[in-house]
C-alpha cells in the first residue's frame, strides 16, 4: 500500500516542483534532502487526530504524539505546537484553512482521524503542502487491532517521511539489544526487544547466562545471538514469538559474531578453535557448515552485502584489526580500511553503498562510514567507547552503543544520522548495548 502511494507521490512531487519554480520562484519545493544533513528543520503541524467516535478519544492524543515524535526525532522536522494553531481541525473531511497554517509558518500539515470498531483501530491521514495549498499524495487508511496503536503511528510517520524526503522510512521497526544491569564487575545481561524508539521493551532471556550481539533474521521473527548458556560461548537461534531456542548446527568450538544472510537461509559466524578465530557459513535449515577463512589471524564480525554476494569482516592478519571484503564463497580477501588506527565491526548498509564500522584510534572510539571500496571514510562520533553500529532500514541512520569511562561506566544506546548530525540517546529502562535494527515490519 505504501509502495503504491510512493509511486504516485513521485509524480506528484515532480509536478509540484515544476509548479513552485514557475509560480513562487523564491519558495523551495517541500522536500528535504537528507543526504547533506539538515541545518534548518522543516516546520510542520500535526493537530490532534479527530476522534470519530467516543471509543477513539483515548487513542487520538497519543497516536498523534507518537507520529510527531517520530518526525521530530529525525532532526529533519520541527513541530509547531498545538497551542500555536489558529485553525482547529474537528472534521477530517472539512476543507483545510491553508491561510491559518501559513500564518504560523507550518510548511507541512498532517491531518488525521481515528475511530474504533470492536477491537479494530482505524486511522486515516492526509499530508498537505501548506504553501502550495495542495495535498501531497493520497490520503491513507490503516486498520489494525487497538494494541497496535504505536505501530499505526509509526506507519503514518513513515508515509509522511517518505513523501517529504523521497526515502523509505524507518519508524515501524524494532531493535533487539542487550539490557544490562548491575556493577561493572558483575554485569547482568538479558536479551531484549524494543520498538525503534525504545517503547514496548520485552525481555527474552533472564540474566542467568551472558548473552551478546543479537541480530534479527530478515523477517524479524528470529534472533541469532551468542550465549554462555552451556558454559562457553555458542550461537543460538531463537524464535521471537515462542522463545524456543536451539544451538545452530554443530559448534565444537567457541562460537560468536553471528549474522544472517539477506535471504535468511544462512548465518555467518566466527568459530574459535585452538585460539584461532575463523569465519564459517552455516545453513540454518541443515546446520551444514562451510569454512570461509583459514588464516592464523583473528577473523571475525562478518556481515553480508545486501545482494548476498560478498562478506565484509575484520581481521588482524596484517597486525591490527582492519576491514576486508571477500566473496561469499570465501577465498582471497581485499583489505579496504587504510586510515590510522584499528577498524572493527563492519556492517554493510541495506542500500549496499556503504559500510559502517567502529574505529579505535589514539585511545578514542568512533563510529564511521566508508564506501564499500574503503574510500570516503567519515567519522560520525567520538567518545571513550563507541561501538557496534547497526543500520536503520533505510540506510540513513545508525544505532550503536556508547559506554562511559570509569568504575561507574555503563553503556547506552544512541542513534546518529550518517551525515553525523542528530546524535540522540535512545531511552531504555536499563543500560543497553549491542543494538541490532530490524528491517521495516510488514
Amino acid at each position, binding site marked *: 500500500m505504501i509502495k503504491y502511494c510512493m509511486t504516485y507521490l513521485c509524480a506528484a512531487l515532480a509536478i509540484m516542483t515544476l509548479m513552485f519554480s514557475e509560480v513562487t520562484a523564491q519558495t523551495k519545493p517541500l522536500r528535504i534532502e537528507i543526504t547533506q544533513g539538515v541545518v534548518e528543520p522543516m516546520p510542520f503541524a500535526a493537530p490532534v487526530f479527530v476522534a470519530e467516535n467516543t471509543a477513539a478519544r483515548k487513542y487520538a492524543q497519543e497516536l498523534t504524539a507518537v507520529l510527531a515524535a517520530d518526525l521530530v526525532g529525525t532532526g529533519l522536522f520541527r513541530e509547531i505546537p498545538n497551542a500555536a494553531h489558529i485553525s482547529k481541525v474537528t472534521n477530517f473531511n472539512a476543507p483545510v484553512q491553508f491561510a491559518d497554517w501559513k500564518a504560523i509558518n507550518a510548511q507541512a500539515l498532517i491531518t488525521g482521524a481515528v475511530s474504533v470498531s470492536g477491537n479494530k483501530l482505524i486511522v486515516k491521514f492526509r499530508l498537505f503542502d501548506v504553501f502550495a495549498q495542495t495535498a501531497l499524495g493520497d490520503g491513507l487508511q490503516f486498520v489494525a487491532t487497538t494494541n497496535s496503536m504505536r505501530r499505526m503511528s509509526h506507519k503514518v510517520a513513515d508515509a509522511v517521511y517518505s513523501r517529504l524526503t523521497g526515502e523509505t522510512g524507518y519508524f515501524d521497526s524494532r531493535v533487539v539489544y542487550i539490557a544490562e544491569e548491575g556493577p*561493572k*564487575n558483575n554485569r547482568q545481561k538479558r536479551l531484549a526487544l524494543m520498538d525503534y524508539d525504545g517503547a514496548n521493551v520485552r525481555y527474552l532471556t533472564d540474566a542467568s547466562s551472558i548473552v*551478546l550481539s543479537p541480530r534479527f533474521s530478515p523477517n524479524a521473527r528470529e534472533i541469532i545471538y551468542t550465549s554462555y548458556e552451556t558454559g562457553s560461548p555458542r550461537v543460538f537461534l531463537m524464535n521471537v514469538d515462542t522463545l524456543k531456542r536451539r544451538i545452530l548446527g554443530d559448534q565444537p568450538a567457541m562460537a560468536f559474531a553471528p549474522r544472517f544472510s539477506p535471504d535468511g537461509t544462512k548465518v555467518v559466524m566466527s568459530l574459535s578453535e585452538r585460539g584461532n578465530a575463523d569465519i564459517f557459513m552455516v545453513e540454518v535449515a541443515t546446520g551444514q557448515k562451510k569454512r570461509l577463512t583459514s588464516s592464523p589471524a583473528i577473523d*571475525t564480525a562478518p556481515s553480508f552485502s545486501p545482494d548476498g554476494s560478498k562478506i565484509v569482516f575484520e581481521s588482524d592478519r596484517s597486525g591490527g*584489526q582492519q576491514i576486508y571484503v571477500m566473496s561469499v564463497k570465501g577465498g582471497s580477501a581485499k583489505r579496504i580500511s587504510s586510515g590510522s588506527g584499528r577498524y*572493527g565491526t563492519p556492517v554493510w548498509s541495506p542500500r549496499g553503498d556503504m559500510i559502517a564500522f567502529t574505529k*579505535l584510534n589514539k585511545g578514542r572510539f568512533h563510529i564511521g562510514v566508508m564506501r564499500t571500496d574503503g574510500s570516503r571514510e567519515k567519522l560520525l562520533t567520538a567518545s571513550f567507547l563507541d561501538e*557496534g553500529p547497526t543500520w536503520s532500514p533505510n540506510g540513513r541512520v545508525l544505532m550503536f552503543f556508547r559506554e562511559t569511562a570509569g568504575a561507574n561506566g555503563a553503556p547506552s544506546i544512541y542513534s546518529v544520522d550518517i551525515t553525523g548530525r542528530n546524535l540522540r540517546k535512545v531511552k531504555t529502562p536499563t543500560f543497553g548495548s549491542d543494538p541490532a535494527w530490524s528491517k521495516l515490519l510488514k
Partner: protein
Amino acid sequence: MIHNFVKISAVVICAIGLSACGQKTPGAYGKLGDVIGAKPGDVSDPTSLAYFQQTIGDRVLFTVNESTLGQDAIDVLDGQANWLIQNTQYVVTVEGHADEQGTREYNLALGARRASAVQNYLVSRGIADNRVNTLTYGKERPIEICSTEVCWSQNRRAVTVVNTNLGS
C-alpha cells in the same frame, strides 16, 4: 574415613569461598589441622587450591592486543605445570580475558587466543591435552573497573581455574 571427609570438606569450602581459604583463620582451621596434623586446603599445603592460586599464581597478564607469554608468565606457568603433574586428579579451564579497550567480538577472539597460548604452554610442559580446557570471556568479566592502564593491565589476563567438580 574421617580423613577423607575432612579433605573433601576442605575442597568444597575452597570452591565456595576462595578468599576464606586464603585467610589464615585459626578458629576455623585449627581443629582440622589438629586432627590430621597438617592444614589441608590452607595456603601452606602445597596440594591445596589456595597454594595453586596464591603461591604459584593462577593467572598471567598480557600486553595490549597481545597473547605472547612474557618471562613472568612463563615462570608462573612452569609452577602451574609442576603442580598439575603432582596433582593428577585435577583438570583445568584456562579463561582468557581482554580489557575494555576493544570491540566485543574481537575481544572474544583475543581472549580465546590468550587462553590457547596458556594451554599450549602447559601442554608443552607435559600436561595432557585433555586436562586443559579453554574458554574466552572477552571483555565481559573485568575484575578491575577503573578505566586506566592500572586496571586494564589486570584485566588482560588468562586465569587457570582448577576444576574441583571431579573430586578425588
